């Protein structure tokens, strides 16, 4: 049994379009299924508005899902509510994108962490203090940081505090929602290495959300590619990046800039914009922009089928075998 099991998860937001028109929904997540094993890092990529963050927030129960189910560590989180859900929350945590907004400006680091420990543990005051010191050491902050306020730290340090906070309750699974996209590149590397170190010590599983393929390739063992609320391709990180089996992934990878002129990839330009999730196209959601679309693509929705013999790679394209030659 996997640590995280997600089955056909849907999150739809109701939208009022007019007084007399039928109620519509933004299908931010439209049937997503995947598993994450213990101690594994799964990368989630896709362009803005494709539902990456919604997936993260839905898994954290910050958004109500419409249908489907997900289990974390064998507990069906999707069926919980109220105080049961609040208790179960210690097994899954989130690292937020914006290190400036994710820390309460009126609380010292010590109070912030102490509050969390008070809620989920039965430690004495001294034990809590020790644990806070241990957490700060783990994320590479000096002990003096304890009595400081968030505005006295830099972006990278704040992100470390955010990480310490999510580690405080010993979670088994962490959703990292673009944890490094607000930081500058040298700090990005530090935070990513920190996340890796923590994983090797505690065997936490990550769902690492990012729009930067290079970062995701570096940290993840597997990658999920999302487009318009669906997963269009999944598989081991290296193979996806070297040999994509979905035209969208191929276009995404070709867009990664390269400074070496000899290895400059053939850039694939996708025409048009991402269609509105209010009104997704018929058939395959990608077909209006796809260079190899056929008549079948506008009629049927492709499921995520196995795309190679190993059974590890899946692609939601009818013509996955033609993608490498694109």
């Amino acid at each position: 049994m996997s640590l995280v099991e997600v089955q056909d998860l849907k999150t739809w937001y109701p939208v009022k379009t007019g007084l007399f028109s039928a109620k519509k929904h933004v299908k931010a997540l439209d049937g997503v299924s995947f598993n994450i094993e213990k101690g594994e890092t799964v990368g989630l990529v896709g362009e803005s508005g494709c539902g990456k963050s919604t997936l993260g927030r839905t898994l954290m129960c910050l958004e109500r899902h419409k249908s489907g189910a997900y289990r974390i560590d064998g507990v069906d989180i999707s069926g919980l509510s109220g105080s049961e859900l609040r208790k179960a929350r210690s097994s899954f945590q989130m690292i937020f994108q914006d290190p400036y907004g994710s820390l309460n400006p009126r609380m010292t680091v010590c109070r912030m962490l102490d509050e969390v420990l008070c809620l989920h543990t039965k430690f004495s005051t001294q034990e809590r203090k020790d644990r806070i010191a241990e957490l700060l050491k783990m994320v590479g902050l000096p002990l003096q940081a304890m009595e400081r306020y968030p505005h006295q730290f830099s972006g990278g340090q704040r992100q470390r505090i955010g990480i310490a906070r999510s580690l405080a309750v010993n979670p088994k699974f962490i959703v990292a929602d673009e944890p490094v996209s607000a930081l500058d590149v040298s700090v990005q590397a530090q935070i990513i290495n920190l996340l890796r170190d923590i994983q090797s010590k505690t065997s936490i599983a990550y769902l690492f959300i990012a729009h930067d393929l290079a970062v995701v390739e570096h940290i993840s063992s597997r990658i999920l590619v999302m487009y318009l609320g669906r997963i269009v391709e999944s598989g081991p990180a290296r193979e996806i990046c070297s040999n994509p089996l979905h035209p969208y992934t191929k276009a995404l990878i070709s867009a990664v800039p390269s400074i070496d002129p000899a290895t400059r990839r053939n850039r694939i330009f996708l025409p048009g914009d991402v269609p509105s999730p209010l009104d997704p196209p018929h058939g395959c959601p990608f077909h209006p922009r796809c260079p190899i679309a056929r008549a079948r693509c506008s009629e049927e929705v492709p499921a995520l089928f196995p795309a190679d013999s190993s059974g590890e790679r899946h692609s939601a394209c009818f013509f996955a075998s033609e993608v490498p030659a694109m």
Partner: protein
Amino acid sequence: MAAAVPGTLRYILKRILCGKISCAAFIIVVLYLLLSCGMEIYAYHCAYSGIDPIYAKGNMSMNFLPPSAEHWFGTDYQGRDVFWRSLAGAGTAVKIGMSASIISAVIGVILGMLAGYFGKWVDDLVVWIYSTFASMPTLLFILAFALLVSKGFLFPPAAELLKKFANVFHADMGMIAVYLGIGLTGWVGLCQVVRAETMKLRETGYVLAAKSMGFNPFKIIFRHIMPNLFHLVIIYFTMRFAYSVMTEVIVSYLGLGVESAPSWGVMISDGQEGLWRGLWWEVTAATALMFFMVLPLHLLGDYLRDILDPRLGEN
């Protein structure tokens, strides 16, 4: 030692004391507060030992005396000293300003935060309530309420309860009515602002983080949201304070509020009869003391808004 965090009391105090006008306004307001505390203690002392307080001691043979070394602001129609009466009036005004603003702030902040955080039907209900209150003419509501309470048209058990309150606070029923009346009508503006701010804060990272930590909604509201919108409460509290003082004067002037205690409104109403005979000092004293209290409060409120409201930009 941590540096002052923007928005904390220490930070606010520091900023206030840096500005010339704000510093002066702040000092005047503090003086008024001290004065009213002094007057209140004196009133309690007089009530316990059974002596007439200096501002209530009348001498009919000495009435309508103009300002002199003995009676700085002259005497009124009962021969009472106007200087001491206007100082005691400051005590009444501060008492009413404080309690009415506290009532408004508590109602406004709690309803606003609940509406903003929970949304849905809670929000609809709160919006409905404050729209109803906002559509009533404030002064008429206060007058009706004061009439109801002070003239004893209230449901008996409720009147009994209010009487007990009145005894505790050393005030007559009319004053309690004005406290409640001004407090119950003054929360709408603050409630709207707090609701909007809560809606904004509800989506910030640290509130989401607190939610995903598993804190219960009330802990999130009081620990993470309230401290971060407290600057709004401070601004509105100062503004409401000034407004409450003026409303008290108007209601007392109309003869519905304060009866036994000295009040600027009552003084103005008493003094206006003598104005055409040239007996200007009673009205002048009351008006001047009110003016020098309300003006600094407004200045302070404006200044607080400048330094605390992020929408106006940091200067």
